């Protein structure tokens, strides 16, 4: 049986997915990166292995996310793609005809506009942390509510409170003020959800034509309050795909399957890489005045990846 591995190494979470030839998800995994991408990749590979059928053979590997190059060096990837393309491919596969993708992850949020199956426009937040999962996480822990229940609280609100949403600093002080005034928690949480959505639409979604079908994905899509806030702000229906939190990994597995086709051999190094010890180091090249910072990833004595230069003097990918 042929299988395709997709790995999305993000700043907050590392996701691993294995698809079969019918593009069905055989196994999926969402773990925290915790600032240690190499360890997260190895843990992910180790935990997903027992969930796979014995006769499964990995025939293609795709990586994405900010740690895509690192993941590619460790597991041996066939396709290394940015997360915007990966997310679009996954959404198209799960919701054929999708025209708008709203994606909110831990550290970034993006909007992708598609027409007739082709990405025609996209935007990513660049200078603002408001409107990301980390901010919600932080506020949930400040209110001592598990993040999983955040959405339920929002849905119970009767009259949402207005919270400033442009900047996390403003939002937080506004929220504390409203709490001290005596507003109930549900109304505040709903207000915060609306502020986040307002900020997202004004900032990331500015000037974009948002048309149905709309898919909402990324870790924050688990939050029912945000989904409801999107629907009321847009006046449109928002769908959440089943694997909303691992769409990047799904997309890169799909890209890998497309790339290797039937005959191209994979670069996959096998699941045994979980037992290896990888170490990263960096040095400044003194070849010319550019003084590039070169990063080198090695497995014991063997160098498995090296990049960071402006020429290809050191490159091993």
């Amino acid at each position, binding site marked *: 049986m042929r299988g395709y591995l997709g790995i999305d190494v993000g700043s907050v979470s590392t996701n691993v997915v294995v698809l079969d030839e019918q593009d069905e998800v055989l196994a999926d995994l969402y773990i925290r990166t915790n600032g240690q991408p190499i360890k997260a990749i190895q843990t992910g590979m180790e935990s997903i292995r027992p969930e796979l059928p014995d006769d499964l053979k990995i025939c293609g590997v795709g990586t994405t996310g900010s740690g895509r190059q690192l993941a590619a060096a460790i597991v041996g990837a066939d396709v290394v793609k940015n997360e915007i393309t990966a997310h679009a491919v996954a959404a198209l596969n799960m919701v054929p005809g999708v025209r708008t993708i709203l994606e909110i992850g831990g550290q970034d949020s993006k909007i992708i506009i598609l027409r007739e199956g082709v990405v025609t*426009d*996209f935007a990513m937040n660049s200078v603002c942390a408001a409107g990301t999962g980390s901010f919600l996480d932080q506020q949930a822990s400040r209110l001592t509510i598990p993040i999983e229940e955040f959405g339920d609280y929002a849905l119970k609100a009767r009259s949402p409170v207005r919270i400033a949403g442009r900047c996390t600093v403003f939002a937080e002080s506004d929220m504390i003020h409203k709490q001290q005034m005596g507003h109930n928690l549900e109304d505040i949480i709903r207000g915060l959800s609306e502020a986040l959505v307002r900020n997202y639409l004004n900032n990331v979604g500015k000037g974009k034509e948002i048309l149905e079908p709309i898919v909402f994905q990324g870790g924050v899509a688990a939050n029912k309050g945000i989904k409801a806030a999107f629907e009321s702000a847009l006046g449109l229906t928002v769908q959440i795909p089943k694997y909303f939190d691992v769409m990047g990994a799904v997309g890169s597995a799909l890209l890998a399957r497309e790339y290797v086709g039937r005959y191209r051999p994979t670069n996959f190094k096998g699941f045994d890489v979980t037992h290896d010890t990888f170490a990263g180091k960096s040095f400044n090249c003194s070849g010319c005045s550019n003084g590039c910072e070169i990063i080198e990833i090695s497995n014991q004595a063997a160098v498995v990846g090296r990049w960071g230069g402006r*020429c290809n003097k050191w490159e091993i990918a």
Partner: protein
Amino acid sequence: MKKVTFPHMGTSVVVFADLIRDLGNETVVPIRPNKRILDLGVRYGPEFACLPFKILLGSYLEAVERGADTVVTSGGSGPCRAGHYGEVAQKIMASAGKDLEFIVFDSIYQKPLEFIRKVNRLNSSKLSYWTIVQLVRFYWRKLQALDQLERASHRVRPRELKRGEATQVFNESVKWVQESKTMGQIAEAEASGLKAFNAIAQNSEVDVVKVGIVGEIYVVLEPAANLEIEETLGNMGVEVNRSIYLTGWTRENTPGGKKSDGFEDAAKPYLPEPIGGHAQESIGHTVMFARDGYDGVIQLAPFTCIPEIVVKTIMPRVTREHGIPVLTFFLDEQTGKAGMQTRLEAFIDMLRRKKETREEMQYARVSGH
């Protein structure tokens, strides 16, 4: 003897250094902006000032350490705060105990007499005006040659078979131009440079994506301020052209000719008045790139730059009406390239897919499918 330093702006450094030297000054050639220069600029500059100011202030402070006592820079017209940056930098440096002479050149058309007085201050060798005119013409020719070579590098880089060759040829040919002593030698250096570019093994089959770059002049022209975006794009197989070269395309073709390449007209439906900075240029050139069949445009702007913020809000309409996708980068102190790399990759992927679909559709129309 005056020890003169000036802003670092792409490859033009080699030319300005020689010009200032020939006027009878010692030059303290600015080094390529690096981490230390940025640190200095951030420490002494106002928090809300933009990246170009911080880089320039940092460069001046670094040059002072190497003995510079005079700064030559340009002013500006119109409501952009960069027009005051020379004076602001001078005040900040004075308050830090570094009293320097600042010679700030504004456009010769604005206050011709003042312009000439400033030339006199820099003319330490007391050269005749005729000689100065000859010198300026000579170095202007060098700038033109450098721009030509840079254009060639943009054309060849996405098509080169061995990565890095175009950059290498460019660096070498810059040296040839710099070492030229006569007009004839400049032409010769330029010709050999262009020949060297043509000799690079290229893949002529590829249908490369073409991208235009617009935005604020400093972050467009100084690779150290824009994370070497042109080279990054070239290595991704993209042909890059930018709206601003130090010597304009028109002036190059018509000696002593027009001032503008027509960007005001192109920008008119969106921004009929100049609002400072390079706002009108950015809009107008985006429209012009669309007309010239470019696949996309990248706007570069210093973080907090008002004219470019205005441009960004107008861009969706330009995109809609001219069918040209635009990607905006606000540049600040960050030196990590990952964020830019991801956005560039996705943008180029998108342009490529669009181009392919468009060509398929054209094929279908032509062949009656």
